[in-house]
């Protein structure tokens, strides 16, 4: 094999070492720092934006939870208000009803009493008038003078008899 011809070895080894050293120097000095810096910068940027996205996401989640809690609280409050309003309305209604009933009762009572009173008054009046009239009639018819007390006693007797028979 031609690769084992040893008289090329020294030149190959020499130039290999020289070229490799030169390439290492050139790349180390001029190429690698730039490329590695760009790669690292890009990696950092990607990592940063991922971190930021994560932060935003968790913040949004937190906000959503917040809003949900608030919404829940608000709806509970609304329910409470509604219940209270209903209760109050119910109470008012009942109160009103009671008041009206009582009023009606009172009016009815008043009216009954008044009617009773009027009736009594009327009966009394009728009694008086009837007595007077009877006296006058009797005076005229009998033409006899009785004293006043006799008249009254007689009339009352007559009226009692009348009242008894009218009650029957």
């Amino acid at each position, binding site marked *: *094999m*031609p*690769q*084992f*011809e040893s*008289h*090329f*070895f*020294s*030149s*190959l*080894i*020499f*130039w*290999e*070492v020289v*070229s*490799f050293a*030169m*390439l*290492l120097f*050139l*790349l*180390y000095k*001029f*190429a*690698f*720092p*730039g*490329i*590695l*810096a*760009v*790669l690292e*910068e*890009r990696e950092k*940027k990607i990592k940063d934006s991922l971190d930021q996205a994560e932060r935003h996401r968790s913040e949004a989640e937190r906000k959503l939870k917040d809003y949900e809690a608030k919404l829940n609280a608000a709806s509970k409050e609304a329910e409470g208000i509604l219940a209270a309003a209903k209760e109050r309305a119910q109470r008012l209604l009942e109160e009103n009803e009671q008041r009206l009933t009582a009023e009606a009762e009172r009016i009815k009572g008043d009216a009954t009493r008044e009617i009773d009173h009027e009736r009594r008054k009327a009966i009394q009046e009728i009694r008086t008038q009837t007595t007077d009239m009877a006296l006058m009639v009797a005076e005229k018819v009998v033409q006899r003078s009785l004293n006043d007390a006799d008249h009254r006693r007689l009339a009352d007797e007559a009226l009692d008899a009348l009242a008894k028979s009218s009650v029957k």
Partner: protein
Amino acid sequence: MEDSPLHPFELHNFLSIHLGGLDISLNKAVIMMWVVVGLVTILMIKAGSARQLIPGKLQSLGEILVDFIRGIILDTMGKDGMRFFPLIATLFLFILFCNLIGLIPGSYTVTSQIVVTAVFACVVYGMSVVMGFVLHGAKFLGILVPPGTPGWLLPLMVPIELISQLARPISLAVRLFANMTAGHVILGVLFGLAVSGGLLIGWLPFAFTIAMNGLEVGIAFIQAYIFTVLTCVYLGDAFHLHGSEDHAH
């Protein structure tokens, strides 16, 4: 193309230079090394000077290569390994471009010379051994004793481990050399067939030549990759002895 399939590996000095007693004559392989150095330097410096956040084509290529090597180092050696980045990256790029340039008809594959691959292998392996002794002192000899070996097995295990250690640079050198040589021999034979076969059936080996060339690009890449990975593995072994500091003897 009627010559031996090994013909393309022959070298001829066209400028004889002697430095002291050392023969450093120029030949095709040496010129190819220079070409590789020039090409890689221009490519990587141009790629490195763009520094755009959204890279152009050339910058992308440079960054892919650098990121690739960085990935290998981080996988095999961890963050500590990044101090070797310039050396390992240069090694990878040098070997990769030597392999690739050799595929151009009429050029020369530097890595098909066993001395070239042997020098790389010895430098890499020598470095890992030196580093192991510098970091761990005499304890580094423990690399010859696999953890958990019973005492009576030591006379057997130590020679086996010694051989497997010494086999490392040899497998490194032989693998690259053999793959680069074999691939080019096949390519050369097929191409020779295509030329001598003429128009009638010549297209068949020619089609094979093209297919093989595609395969060879893959092999050129894989071999550079393997060389780099093993370099990292060996350096990593010297770095973290038996994977941890507190191994049992």
